[in-house]
């Protein structure tokens, strides 16, 4: 039987999620034995239009060209798996969607905005094509990604980790930073996968892994107000790395005024 084929595609992103592969060390060489990596530009493999079994997609869709490319990826791939916050929710750059700022920001930054081709919004991949599996995280880590690859190679659906960071904190015996120190932690609404790294370092979770299952972000918003956060700061907490994820976007916008203004 032929080895399963894999492609890694990059869209609007920081390249950090692809590092789940490039930082894998010996596992990277082992992966190259298990699968046929057809396209992965940063690793030196270029075959943009290759037909593959699994396509990993990093980055949000923010230009006309990316829109064409992602549709082509869908046509050429049996499974499309998003890799990280940008591909899954739109990522940090989706903050431009909040006030439709694309045109104004382009004019402010570039001397010759006419050369800059962008879409109005930075969107998650699932806004434009059907996605088979989503791996959340900013960044995703090697354990998540290699586990998904392994499960797909076994012919089963990857396990979706949707627990809250709070659960992970308990497992890790980390002291709750909200209860003990009154920090505005987003652990109660955030998906696990990071190993509760922020609370373990004594800081409040900033929700880089996106919304967990069955959450009540409005109740957490009230709690943050109770801790003394003004509405603009409650908005900043929800409208950050995953501002475009509906659960966070809806909760944040209840407190948001244009430009995170106070009144």
């Amino acid at each position, binding site marked *: 039987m032929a080895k399963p084929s894999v492609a890694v595609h990059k869209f609007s992103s920081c390249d950090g999620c692809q*590092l789940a592969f490039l930082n894998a060390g010996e596992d990277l*060489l082992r992966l190259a034995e298990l699968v046929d990596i057809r396209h992965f530009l940063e*690793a*030196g493999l*270029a075959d943009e239009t290759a037909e593959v079994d699994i396509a990993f997609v990093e980055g949000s869709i923010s230009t006309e060209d990316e829109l064409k490319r992602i549709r082509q990826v869908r046509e050429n791939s049996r499974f499309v798996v998003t890799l990280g916050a940008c591909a899954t929710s739109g990522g940090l750059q989706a903050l431009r969607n909040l006030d439709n700022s*694309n045109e104004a920001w382009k004019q402010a930054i570039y*001397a010759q905005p006419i*050369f800059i081709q962008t879409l109005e919004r930075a969107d998650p991949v699932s806004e434009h094509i059907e996605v088979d599996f989503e791996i959340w995280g900013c960044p995703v880590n090697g354990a998540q990604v290699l586990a998904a690859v392994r499960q797909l190679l076994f012919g089963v659906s990857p396990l979706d980790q949707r627990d809250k960071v709070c659960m992970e904190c308990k497992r890790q015996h980390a002291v709750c930073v909200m209860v003990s120190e009154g920090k505005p932690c987003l652990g109660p609404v955030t998906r696990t996968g990071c190993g509760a790294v*922020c609370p373990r370092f*004594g800081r409040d979770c900033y929700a880089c892994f996106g919304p967990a299952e069955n959450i009540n972000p409005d109740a957490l918003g009230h709690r943050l107000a109770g801790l003394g956060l003004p509405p603009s700061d409650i908005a900043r907490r929800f409208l950050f790395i995953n501002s475009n994820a509906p659960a966070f976007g809806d909760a944040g916008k209840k407190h948001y005024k244009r430009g995170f203004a106070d009144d």
Partner: protein
Amino acid sequence: MTERSVSIHVPAMTRVEGEGSLRIRIENDRIEDLALDIFEPPRYFEKFLEGRRYHEVLDITARICGICPVAYQMSAAQALENAFGIDPGRWVRDMRRVFYCGEWLQSHALHVHLLAAPDFLGFDSVVGMAEEHPQAVRRGLRLQGLGNELIRLLGGRSVHPVGARVGGFFRAPTQAEVDAMLVKLRAALPQAEELVAWAAALPMPVDRQEFVNVALRHAKDYPLAEGRIVSDGGLDIPIEEVEQHFVEEHRPQSTALFATLHGKPYLVGPLARLNLNLDRLPASSHALLEQSHIRFPSDNMFHSLFARALEIHIAIVEAIRLLDGYQLPERTHVECEPHAGVGFGATEAPRGILWHRYEVDDEGIVRSARIVPPTSQNQARIEADLHRSLLNFGLDRPDEELRLRAETVIRNYDPCISCATHFLKLKTDRR
């Protein structure tokens, strides 16, 4: 020779960080058109930093680049502390240097082995190279892994670490964690020595050229997380004066900016750092350099790979020096009391000087941000180098050889296109 028209177009560069393409047109032995086009989509970091609290900035700027997030956090922390007039003290300074050593180690090992070396050994990718050079590749992957571990010691994770804050760190590593790390660092030192010898023996083209080196320079240490900005052309300025000497320009077909110093291209990165800081090397790294046949300062751009290998050694030596005799601090950070002001930060990212400027208000909210990454500084230099390297190489060579040489020249700079794209503050004045 017969008339020939060559058009080389590499629509998507491989083994670089981010998206760029290469375009060369040769007519009758003349280069008529040549460009490294950067078409990575803009993400507007400088705009959405506006309106955010100062303590959110490190988590935002890290996301500019997954390969050098520590650099973005360290330049930002320095700039905001500068704006608030804070000195975080000796322990924080030392640990930031250790943190940063981890990033140099990780990023340089990634570039040397996965991105650059396949060019010099005749492979398309590290996967093919690993079959014939398994020891070298495994050594590289181990050093890269060690760099990531060193970042995790202080940052919790290696990509977009969470441990750093304005004023210091959230958490101090325990003595046991530091001791375990020291064992690994000491075990890696012989591997780094082997790597330096291996890099010196790689078949490097000899391609001498004139260029201006620009790097940070510190009173006594090899430059990393602080210093003045110097050049071999006599520039020696505090980082606050960058805007008076360096200009960025927006060109068509690109989402990045081209920076120039007094109107001319210049080089930042490992080769420039080493060329300008030979008297700041740790003694054992200096001894390794003396043992190699390569003499510095060097005007052969291809010695960049060797400089990266030597900086891997420097990073390990420095991390050992700073962690040896580690003591838990009384406090891991100093508290900030925000007030309105402007602050500057500049550190040596793996790819060269990374300069930040922030204006904050009395509430500690960012009102404006400007970021100048290394790759936009090197871009004019890359194009100048490409032009003369190809002429030197011989335009009568077959297309495929020309294409490979051009790609090798570009990759030699370790361009980070993701970084270069996102900060483009435009000035239309030209000199």
